[in-house]
């Protein structure tokens, strides 16, 4: 079987896995979300979000460093004991599946709006989910290989976007610094939703080669890459569409390309959309992988494929239940935004504090007594 057990991924692969997990569904609508929150200052929110995430990464690293051989699902029971730890693990699994559902929904809606208006949602979602299931059943190493390979698409996507640079009006970015703090904060939330993938650090950390510091560096580089990539996308779209126009285009990246006609091919946006499907598939797969890993640890089973299948089915059924109508999706994504603040922001920070302060002191006391 490919992907032998205990085979670790290299740091380069780790870098690309994180990138591919972070860049996913959100990239097409990110400029719109940022603009809605903080107008032309949305890019500042993005930078701030990157900063916040870097802090959380540090917190996660501090926690993970104390338990070098286990991932999040091994850390939780060790910190809180089996009872509470298992419950927390289970909740995290559910959260990952919920992210999967959100990805499926947004993916389905995007395709519904742009290229396949008549194809039933369940066909698209189950196709995507089963491809991801096939991917994760081959193991993390194979996943990492593929993520590395398809990362070339990111560069092609970016190159396509460069077509819009000609018509950029940097004046649209002015005036800078008009947004108030709450607006910026809202922007950070929106940007954070597009960068959720950094939470995979918890799971990937013990499965990556290198010293703790090296791994932290790679992770920070990945974060830097994602922020830069997003920043360039956001700046290009902000420069292309005026502040008034931005409010009218929910998928500015696609609209930008739709307006450009090359001599050989028109409608470049459809090609970008096709590449975007790959990005969705990769980030979807990582979440599915994380949830199935979590479930397999919870149930003390080595048969990850079984839990992956279960997670896949669950994600498909929930997404079909919610459907791709406007309102339920908006409700669900609002819920996910709030949940994400908890699961990827607050909890990692608290975990760090608990692990570094409480856990260490308790352990030291124990050691002292013994």
């Amino acid at each position, binding site marked *: 079987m490919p992907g032998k057990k205990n085979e670790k991924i290299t740091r380069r*692969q780790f870098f690309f896995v994180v990138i591919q997990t972070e860049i996913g569904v959100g990239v097409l609508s990110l400029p719109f979300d940022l603009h809605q929150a903080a107008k032309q200052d949305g890019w500042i929110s993005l930078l701030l979000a990157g900063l916040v995430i870097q802090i959380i990464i540090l917190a996660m690293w501090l926690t993970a460093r104390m338990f070098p051989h286990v991932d999040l699902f091994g850390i939780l029971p060790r910190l809180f004991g089996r009872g509470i730890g298992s419950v927390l693990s289970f909740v995290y699994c559910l959260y990952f599946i919920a992210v999967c559902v959100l990805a499926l929904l947004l993916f389905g809606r995007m395709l519904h709006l742009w*290229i396949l208006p008549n*194809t039933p949602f369940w066909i698209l979602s189950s196709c995507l989910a089963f*491809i991801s299931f096939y991917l994760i059943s081959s193991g993390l190493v*194979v996943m990492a290989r593929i993520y590395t390979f398809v990362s070339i698409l990111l560069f092609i996507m970016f190159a396509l976007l460069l077509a819009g640079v000609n018509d950029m009006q940097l004046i649209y970015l002015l005036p800078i610094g008009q947004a108030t703090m709450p607006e910026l904060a809202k922007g950070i939330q929106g940007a954070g939703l597009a960068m959720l993938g950094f939470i995979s650090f918890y799971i990937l950390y013990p499965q990556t080669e290198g010293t703790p510091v090296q791994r932290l560096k790679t992770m920070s580089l990945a974060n830097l890459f994602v922020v830069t990539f997003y920043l360039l996308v956001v700046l290009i779209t902000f420069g292309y569409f005026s502040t008034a126009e931005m409010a009218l285009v929910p998928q500015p990246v696609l609209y930008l390309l739709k307006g450009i006609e090359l001599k050989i091919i028109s409608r470049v946006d459809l090609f970008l959309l096709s590449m975007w499907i790959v990005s969705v598939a990769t980030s979807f797969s990582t979440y599915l992988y994380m949830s199935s890993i979590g479930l397999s640890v919870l149930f003390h089973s080595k048969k990850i494929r079984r839990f992956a299948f279960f997670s896949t089915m669950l994600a498909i059924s929930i997404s079909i239940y919610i459907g791709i109508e406007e309102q339920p999706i908006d409700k669900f994504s609002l819920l996910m935004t709030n949940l994400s603040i908890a699961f990827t922001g607050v909890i990692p920070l608290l975990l760090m504090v608990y692990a570094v302060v409480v856990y260490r002191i308790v352990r030291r006391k124990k050691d002292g007594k013994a």
Partner: protein
Amino acid sequence: MNFFKSRTKKSNQSANPEKEDLPNSTSLKENVTYLAEAFQRSSDLKFRVLEEGSAVLIYFESLADQEKIQDKFFKPYMQLTKDELMTKSSGRKMDKRKDVIQFLLKGHAAFAIDGSADIVLFSTTSTFNRSVDEPDNEKIVRGSHEGFIDNLMININLIRKRIENKNLTVNFSKLGEISATKVAVVYIDGIANPKIVKKVKDRLKTISVDYIISPGFIEEFIEDHAYSPFPQMINTERPDKTAANLLEGRVAILAEGSSTCLIAPATFFAFYQSPDDYNSRWFTGTFIRLIRLFSFIIAIGLPAFYISVVGFHFEVIPQDLVIPVKSSINDIAYPPIVEALVMVVIIELIREAGIRLPTPVGQTIGIVGGLVIGDAIVRAGLVSNFMIIVVALTAIASFVVPSNEMSTTLRLLTFPLIILSATLGFVGIVFGMLILLIHLSRMESFGSPYFSPLAPLHVKDLKDTFVRLPLFKMNNRPTDAKAVKKKTQGKSRGWITNARQKK
């Protein structure tokens, strides 16, 4: 289950195992009767009675060469006494019936005397070999024009001639319980990874069948992923290609009676390489290689792309091209997917008919099939002009691949992609390509990743996959073969620095 197993095993073995293991009898009569019985009194088994019945020469008329019998047996026989013949001649003494039978089957002549349990066997095998001509299916422009033939020893000779090294190792084994085909595992000790060599040998050992007719049999028994459309071992009839692969640390498997050599482990990109790449200048080699890899994308993706553009995303076509495309497909009664499938099947029919028919008739088929049907089918309004172009291009692209196995695989993969693109458009193509990519990346050939320099990414290996950089830049062997000795060369262009230093 056990009951059945034991029964089938028994039936596979020869009828009288006990008798076969016995030593020869001292009685000539007994020996002769036994041998005659052992071969079911086969008519081509010749007994030549000598010295009024006290000695017999036994051989298969169909296997032994009369001239050699004259040379190796009768000449010494005239000069020497019988005892001397037993000891001093080129013959080999055998005292077991089993051995005698085996050597008779190889074409040896057996000389038996009354009163002695020893039978002397003379090597009189007649051989018919075709010349070591260049294989028809792997022609190259420049370089070696020799090819393997159906004789194992000559094939190994061709390899050894190219690698005059004591580390070149050949291991024989017999496969097939009835056919007992001689199979050789060839590798270079000290370069090939011992783990891979062991894997190959172990897998060969577990093969338990009645007969091995072609290396295709062996391939199916020992490859990692039997349910994959992709070939996982290189099939070649070229000794130079085999030698080059051995030097990269791979293992070759040859079988008696077949001119095809199997090479493992193989990567996907190995099927896109040809010795021609190295015989031409490296710019040209690179260009040709890029064309070949581009042909992969055309071969599996072009019809799918065309169908999804015509069927789903007409807006992708630039304005000036819209009218020609639209006018070409407007009068066609069938949807593009039917058009495509019809055309692809027609091309496959023409190809298959062309192979089976003798060469002169084959050309006729090409003309009738290609030109006449192609023209008529458009006029009849069954298939559009554009679809003919697309499918013809696809077929040509699939023939560019140097390996026949990979080429058939590509043509097979066109079908699922056509169906996917006809149902989901671009999305379908992306889904199809993703599945393909996942499949390629999770495959392994004898423990080394199949899609090697791309997934997992080995930047250094890319210089001999997509491009062909100058040979003096390739200092290391490709990593996918996991060779023990990494370095392939020192400074082969050291004369440049030497010249500079002299100045």
